[in-house]
Every structure is written in C-alpha cells, then in structure tokens.
C-alpha cells in the first residue's frame, strides 16, 4: 500500500512546491493591487519556452540567469502595459485587462512556437534519476521542497527586514495611505511583480524538468491551481500560499494515484468553493477581506 502511494506522494510534494512558487506571485500581487493576475500562469509558460530557446544556442550557465532576467522583465512589462493605466479604473476592468493579457501572451507563444509542443531541455544534475526509498524519481522531485523552503525563507526575510519589504507591507495594508507616506507605489508594485516572476521562472524550471512538454496553454491550469492555493492559505499570506500549494499538490497527486485522474482538477476547484464557503479568509489571513 505504502509502496504504491509513495511515488505519488513524492510527485505531489514536488508539484506542490511548484504550485507554491507560483502561488506566491499571485498572493503578493493580490495583497497589494487586489487583482488576480491571470497572466501569471502564462508568464510561467513563457519562462519555459525561453529556456527551450536559450539552451538551444547558449550554455546552461548563461541561459539560466538570462531566462530568469527575461522573465522578471516580462513580469514588470505586463504590469506597466496592462495594469498601470487602469490604477483608478473599476476592478472589473483590471480583471478583464488581465484576461486580455493572458490571451495575448498565449497567442504570442502560439505564433512564435507554431503551436507545437517543445521538448524542455534536461537540466544536468536535477534531471538525473535517483532512487528514494525504493522508488525511482528525478532528483528535481527531491530538491523542490527544500528549494521552496529556502526561497520562502529568503523572501520572508526580505519582506520583514528590508526597506522595500516594509514598503510592500505598507502598500498591502493600505494603498492610499502608503502613497501619502511617500512610498513610491509604482516602484513597489514593479518590485512585487519582479519577485513574483522570479519565483515563477524558478518554478517553471522545476515543473518542466518533470513534465517536459511545453505548449502555449500548459501554464493555465497550474496557474489557476496556484491561485486556489493562495486563496486556501489566505490571500496575501506567503506561508499560507506555500502550505496551500503543497497541500493541493499532494492531494491532487494522491487522487491520481487512487485512479481518479479525471477528478484531480475538480478536487482543486471544489476545495476553493469549500474554503470560500467555510473560511473565506483562508488559513492564515491577517485581516478581514471582502470576498464574501
């Protein structure tokens, strides 16, 4: 029994870590702008494609930092183009703009790649096969949770100890007042998008090392699930997003292991409904928000 489920548990922890990295991007943006960044899942996919193209001509030591930098720039650019002009617009307009941006990115990827699935390059060391407790898996499965914990620790330190982190906390508490206190809100928002995209780029490297086919719409589902993870953990809370990500990843993987693959996606959304109905603030939310 245990031997049967162990591979699924391992896969679940790994994919959960990847959801967690994406979910942080959602939760941070939502914390400040009160906006679901629908394009976040597509930024994650773009990072995957960039890696495919970068490694085709460049060595890994160059292409990895290059891909991360390009993804960060893309995240900032998306914010500047699609969200900044709508700062004072009603919430629905911003959300429509986010959906439009996601549509644009998907079509752009389709155009560039010709709509064909691309093979993600095998990254040395992390794509190697290892044996854990008697079951074979890729090394990335094992290191993802540790990497996530390290990154989150670094992020929490950044938010708690540095000046920009303080500005981010202030902006998420009260947008207008933070502005009045002399915080350059646009820089803070750009920085938030940069951090979110950075984590999405790392997440995409982990994710696509496991599931190696990159297609233009592959990021939509992980994106939505990561959002559910963020809501589950209490939107705006980073530890919440991480725990939510792991939990959803593990549950989903175990459901697949139990033979009900069709309903693994359904589970995630059912969870969203239950959470919003029972505890709308999520597990770790600090202050009351207006979801219900």
């Amino acid at each position, binding site marked *: 029994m245990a031997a049967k489920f162990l591979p699924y548990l391992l896969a679940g922890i790994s994919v959960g870590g990847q959801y967690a990295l994406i979910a942080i991007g959602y939760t941070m943006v939502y914390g400040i702008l009160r906006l679901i960044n629908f394009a976040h899942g597509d930024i994650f996919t773009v990072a995957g494609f960039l890696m495919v193209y970068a490694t085709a001509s460049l060595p890994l030591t160059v292409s990895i930092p290059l891909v991360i930098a390009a993804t960060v720039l893309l995240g900032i650019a998306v914010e500047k183009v699609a969200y900044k002009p709508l700062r004072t617009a009603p919430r629905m307009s911003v959300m429509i703009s986010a959906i439009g941006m996601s549509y644009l990115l998907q079509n752009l990827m389709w155009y560039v790649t010709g709509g064909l699935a691309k093979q993600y390059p095998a990254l040395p060391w992390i794509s190697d096969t290892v044996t854990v407790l008697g079951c074979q898996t890729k090394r990335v499965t094992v290191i993802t949770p540790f990497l996530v914990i390290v990154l989150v620790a670094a992020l929490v330190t950044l938010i708690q100890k540095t000046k920009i982190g303080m500005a981010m906390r202030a902006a998420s508490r009260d947008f207008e007042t933070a502005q009045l206190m002399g915080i350059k809100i646009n820089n803070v928002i750009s920085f938030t998008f940069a951090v979110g995209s950075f984590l999405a780029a790392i997440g995409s490297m982990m994710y696509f090392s496991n599931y190696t086919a990159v297609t233009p719409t592959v990021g939509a589902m992980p994106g939505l699930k990561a959002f559910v993870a963020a809501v589950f953990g209490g939107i705006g809370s980073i530890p919440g997003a991480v725990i939510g990500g792991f939990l959803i990843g593990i549950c989903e993987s175990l459901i697949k292991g139990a033979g009900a693959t069709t309903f693994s996606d359904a589970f995630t*959304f059912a969870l969203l*409904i239950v959470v919003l109905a029972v505890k709308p603030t999520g597990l770790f939310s600090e202050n009351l928000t207006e979801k219900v």
Partner: protein
Amino acid sequence: MTMKQEKKRIYLRAALGLIALLAVLLALDNLSFVPSMLLTVLRKGAIYALVAVSMNLLNGFTGLFSLGQAGFMLLGAYTYAILTIPAASQKSIYQRYANGGIGFSIPELLSKPLGGFGLLLGVIFCLILAGCIAALFAFLIGLPVLKLKSDYLAIATLGFAEIIRAAVVYEGFGPLTNGSNLLYGFTSFSNFNITLGGFTLHLETVMPFLFSGICIAIILLLINSTYGRAFKAIRDDEIAAEAMGINLASHKRMSFIISSFFAGISGAMLAMYQASVQATTFKSSMTYEILLIVVIGGIGSVSGSIIASFLFIASSEWLLRFLDNETWIGGFRVPLLRSGFRMVVFSVIIMAVVLFFRKGIMGDRELFQKKPASAAKAAKKEVRSK
C-alpha cells in the same frame, strides 16, 4: 400616445425588422454567388451573439462577474447532441461503449408522425431542454457560489466550468457522453433544408438567426421588465438595492440561471453549427473570447454585444485570415505573416480596446434607443439656465 400603444408599435417594428432580416438571409442562403465565408460568419456570429448577450445579462446588467459560460455551453451542446443522434447510428458512434446512447432520438420520434414540422418541434424541444439542463446546473452551482464577490465568483465559476469539462469525459459517463470521443450525426442546421423536386431551399443561415433572434428578444424583454430594473439596481449599488426591497439572493440566482439557460441553448446551437461536439473545444479560452466580445461591444449594451460578436467572428474567421498566410510581393516576403499572426494582431486590438476604449463600441447605450425622458429634461434645463 399612450405607453401601451407605443410599446405595441415598438414590438411591431422589431418583429417586422426581424422578418425583413430573415428574408434577406434567406436570399443570401440560396444565391450561389454569395461567398461561403460570409455565411459562415453570419451563422457563427448569430450563435455567439446569443451567448454574448447572455453573458452581458449577467456581467453587464447584474454586475456578477461570472466566467462559467463555456461550461454551460458544453452542457447544452452535450444535452442536445445526446437527445438528437438518430437511433440507428448510435451504435456506431458509441462503439466504445457496449450500451451507449439513449436508444431513441427526439426529433426522429416526432418527425415520423409529423414530418418536417415534427423535426422542427423536436429540435426546439431539445434546444429548450438543453437550456434547462444548463439552468439546472446553474441553480446547483449558484447555491454555494453566488455569495462570493467579484473575482472570487469569477474563479469559482471558471473552476466549475473546468469541473464540468472534466466530468463529461469521465469514463463512467461514457455510455451517455461517449467519453472523450466525438459526438456527431445529430440533427444540424442543414437538416432543415427543404427539397422540392430537385430544387433545395437552404435554411442553414436563417435558422440560427431565427433561434438567436427569439432568444435575444426574450432577454431584451426581461431586461426592460421590473426584473431587469432590479438587476441594474443590484449592479449599481447592492446595498441601496437591498434597502429598496430587492431580494439580492433571489435576483442574483435568477439572473445566473437565465443567463446559463441561454448559454446552454447557444451551446446546443454551436453543436448544430459544427455538426459535432467534443468537450475539449469548450475551454476557458472560449469563455475569455465571449467576455472580450462583451467588452468590445460595451458592458451593459445588448446591441453592442451583437455587433461585437459579428465583428469578432468576421475578423477572426475571415477578414484577418490573410495575416496567417505567407505573402510575397514580387521577390519580397512580407515579414511576420505566418500561421498564428492573426491571433496576435487580434489580441493586440483587444488589449487596445480594453486599455484605451474601455466603453467599447456602444458603452451602455443601445442602438435605436430613445433619449430617456429625464435626460432630455435635464438638457432643456441646462439650456434655460444659460
């Protein structure tokens, strides 16, 4: 002139307009020199117009940001397809499932004793049933979901659409839904063509317009009724609406169910148009497209949604097609033009509308709309005070 007379006149005009339109379409359908692309655009546009208007009823008039449209369309399409596949061909279509299919087909049952009229009756009955199934699911989904606000409602409905899509291809429902395989062979628009001794009268474009037109007319009547005014009040200010005695929960539920009902019908019509159904076509990107149609037309404008859906379908299916083909002018290859470029240009246009022309084509006005009396009075006053 009393209100009643005026209303009567408006209805009469609308009915005459619809009949004139149908006559023109009948001519287009049967003249051989009409480009087939135009007919495609008209057919698909009519179907999208209905689903866009139904989404507008919810998003634009009631202010409920729901993204479940594709899921309800899928329910409608499958309901329709399952009910109308001819009994004889069910065995070959459901070949993977031993006891697949329902064993009868409603249009077939009715057309045996009643002929062509029975076929029409059967199809209308199945369309209504398709809408009812979508509405039933909307009722069930609405119970937990409609309490949520803006973006949470959007994500929850999007999630439900995905759940429905996953459930339909579930092997356990295979004998009914044919799993992840195509459903085809059911009654489509071309079945309405009338053949009289060698000559065929085509009705393939007339029928979708007729069905869509009737449905949109019903939605319009609803919007202009007391219910419609209650919806708008909820959109503008929930708390004020509640204070005025509007039951928020029941009106939201009503709007959600009615919108889903018509989404179900349009899904069934899309199935008729495509002559086949598969769950994979009803992705969330379909909902996004419909949402973008609503935005381009103007949130809160029925005529805007209709215009935008024809524009959207025309440009994505026809007018921008050239962008997808490699083009040579002399020895010079026009850069960028290749497969997929059309959609890029298209999404850039949409982003431009979303960012810079937020009101869309019509804003919240309607075509053929009289200036409301209060606005006219206010304008007069302004003139006088000057």
